[in-house]
């Protein structure tokens, strides 16, 4: 059974997604529970996959029994086993907490279709993580885009335009990716990643390979919201239904970031982007500008979801920076940041979802006394915010630590400064919210300290929403405290041999 785990993750979600609308025709409420059960099974299967990888090493799963490079294979090694579990876990928690919010924001008639697309989105993200075939990756990329277009369009006023812009840019991105695949195919004749990796050194100086690389970067860059290709992201995250923001923000960009890792590290060799062409250097600068740009834009926002979206752009920069540093610490830091940021951003968007669900407030200026209304939610918010700022012992600190080590050991002092400055910028916009929420009861009221406490009744979001949020907060701390275990068992293997 365990050796079928990789395909079970996909198959469960796929089959359920087909049945959800049919069963949903008779009983709309059941759609959610079926979806939840499916995601749970997929999560279990993902855990099984990870277990098997840890025990027996990387898994090669040949679809239909055709060996690569003729058939399609799933390759699950240490990095993507981790990402797989991450995606499964976060989707599972988000799904639990999303129920009420979806019921509030989405018309009842649309639930079955909604949950079906929701399942397919998660399925495609898992597929992107597992596959070892370039073209198969493209298909998943398109499934994830298509489902996301539909789901984002279900949001508030303006979501249609946000979604349409995403359609245009997403298609450009996917098409560029497809062109990249075509260019590689034309000079290698292969679509299998491992096969390409083997063939690549002989083709380093081919202009075709270089062009393919550029198209991959742009294509995936659009998908992951890398500056300056991020233009679709803030609107899409802001306008989408809260539950969808909470799902795609931590998972979709992270999976795309993972794909970038995969392509740079295990399709092209890392030496290609550092020695042959100056891609690493260029990416590093793009990432640095993106980090600062995202942070500054986030400071300027009033809407919490939009602020978080810009913060995502900045955090994506961290991941790319780690990759672009192309040394041991940098790569580990970048990869760890996939994990720590997924938890932190997931938690933050879930908090935003709970706040919107319970109070309808989106504007940060109205957050006053929210801590008394929703103490647990806001506590989780604080933990996640501290992780974003990079305060130990949260996960964000440790990824930042490795990134700083990476920049220093590569002697990129300016990049060190960028990371450190950005954590201060993050502090500005997160502490602004914390200040508004916790410490502004008497602001503008005049007088000194000891007034009567204003009576604010606690109206916490339902337990089903809050418990996953708290679990995410625990996850942030767990990733932080056990980061060495994650690195030791999963991430250290991504560092190619001979890299300092």
């Amino acid at each position, binding site marked *: 059974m365990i050796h079928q785990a990789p395909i079970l993750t996909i198959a469960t979600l796929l089959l359920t997604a087909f049945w959800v609308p049919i069963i949903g025709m008779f009983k709309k409420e059941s759609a959610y529970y079926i979806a939840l059960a499916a995601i749970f099974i997929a999560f279990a299967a993902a855990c099984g996959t990870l277990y098997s990888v840890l025990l027996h090493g990387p898994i090669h799963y040949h679809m239909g029994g055709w060996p690569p490079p003729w058939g399609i294979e799933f390759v699950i090694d240490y990095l993507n086993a981790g990402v797989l579990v991450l995606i499964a876990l976060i989707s599972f928690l988000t799904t639990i907490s999303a129920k009420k919010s979806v019921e509030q924001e989405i018309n009842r008639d649309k639930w079955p279709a909604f949950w079906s697309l929701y399942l397919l989105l998660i399925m495609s993200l898992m597929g992107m993580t597992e596959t070892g075939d370039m*073209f198969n990756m*493209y*298909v998943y990329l*398109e499934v994830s*885009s*298509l489902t996301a*277009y*539909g789901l984002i*369009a279900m949001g508030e*006023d*303006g979501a*249609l*335009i946000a*979604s*349409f812009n995403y*359609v*245009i840019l997403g*298609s*450009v991105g*996917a*098409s560029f990716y*497809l*062109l990249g695949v*075509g260019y590689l*195919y*034309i000079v290698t004749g292969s*679509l299998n990643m491992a096969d390409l990796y083997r063939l690549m050194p002989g083709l380093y100086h081919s202009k075709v390979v270089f062009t393919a690389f550029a198209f991959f970067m742009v294509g995936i860059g659009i998908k992951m919201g890398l500056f300056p290709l991020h233009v679709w992201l803030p609107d899409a995250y802001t306008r989408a239904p809260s539950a969808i923001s909470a799902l795609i923000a931590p998972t979709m960009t992270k999976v795309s970031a993972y794909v970038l890792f995969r392509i740079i590290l295990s399709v092209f060799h890392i030496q290609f982007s550092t020695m042959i062409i100056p891609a690493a250097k260029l990416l590093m600068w793009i990432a640095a500008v993106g980090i600062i740009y995202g942070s500054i834009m986030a400071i300027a926002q009033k809407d919490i979801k939009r602020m978080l979206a810009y913060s995502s752009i900045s955090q994506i920069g961290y991941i790319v920076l780690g990759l672009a540093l192309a040394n041991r610490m940098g790569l580990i830091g970048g990869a760890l940041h996939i994990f720590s940021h997924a938890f932190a951003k997931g938690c933050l968007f879930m908090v935003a979802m709970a706040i919107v669900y319970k109070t309808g407030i989106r504007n940060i200026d109205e957050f006053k006394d929210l801590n008394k209304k929703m103490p647990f939610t806001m506590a989780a918010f604080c933990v996640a915010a501290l992780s974003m700022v990079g305060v130990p012992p949260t996960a964000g600190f440790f990824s930042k630590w490795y990134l700083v080590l990476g920049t220093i050991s590569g002697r990129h002092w300016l990049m060190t400064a960028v990371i450190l400055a950005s954590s201060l910028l993050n502090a500005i916009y997160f502490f602004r919210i914390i200040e508004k929420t916790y410490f502004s009861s008497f602001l503008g009221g005049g007088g000194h300290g000891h007034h009567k406490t204003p009576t604010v009744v606690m109206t916490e979001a339902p337990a089903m929403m809050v418990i996953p949020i708290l679990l995410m907060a625990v996850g942030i701390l767990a990733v932080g405290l056990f980061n060495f275990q994650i690195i030791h068992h999963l991430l250290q293997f991504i560092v190619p041999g001979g890299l300092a």
Partner: protein
Amino acid sequence: MEFFLGKFNYWVYIAMMMIGFYAMIAKHNLVKKIIGMNIFQTAIILFYVSIGTKKGGTIPILEGAGHHAVAPESINVAHYINPLPHVLMLTAIVVGVSVTGVALALIILIYKRYNTVEEDEILRQLS
């Protein structure tokens, strides 16, 4: 001249693709953007399919295939064009159609909501 003629398939696809790409990012009319997207995707399909061709090759269906087995070694590879790009493009065509479908659905909704398909007018209404 030889150089240009030898690679004319690429020049054609690049020209097509750029027309589509320009329409996607420069046109304000949403429908025109979608048309641009279709041209773009068609260009990629053209590109892929042209990879598969071989001079003197025929369609990728085994000749003389009966119920008796044909020894793999006896098949002349150069005789048939490469089937793989065709397969890939079958998928890509379907994807293209699906994206177009969703995009058109969005346009319908946008038109219902804003009474226009011109991007700048919609943005004006939104702000």
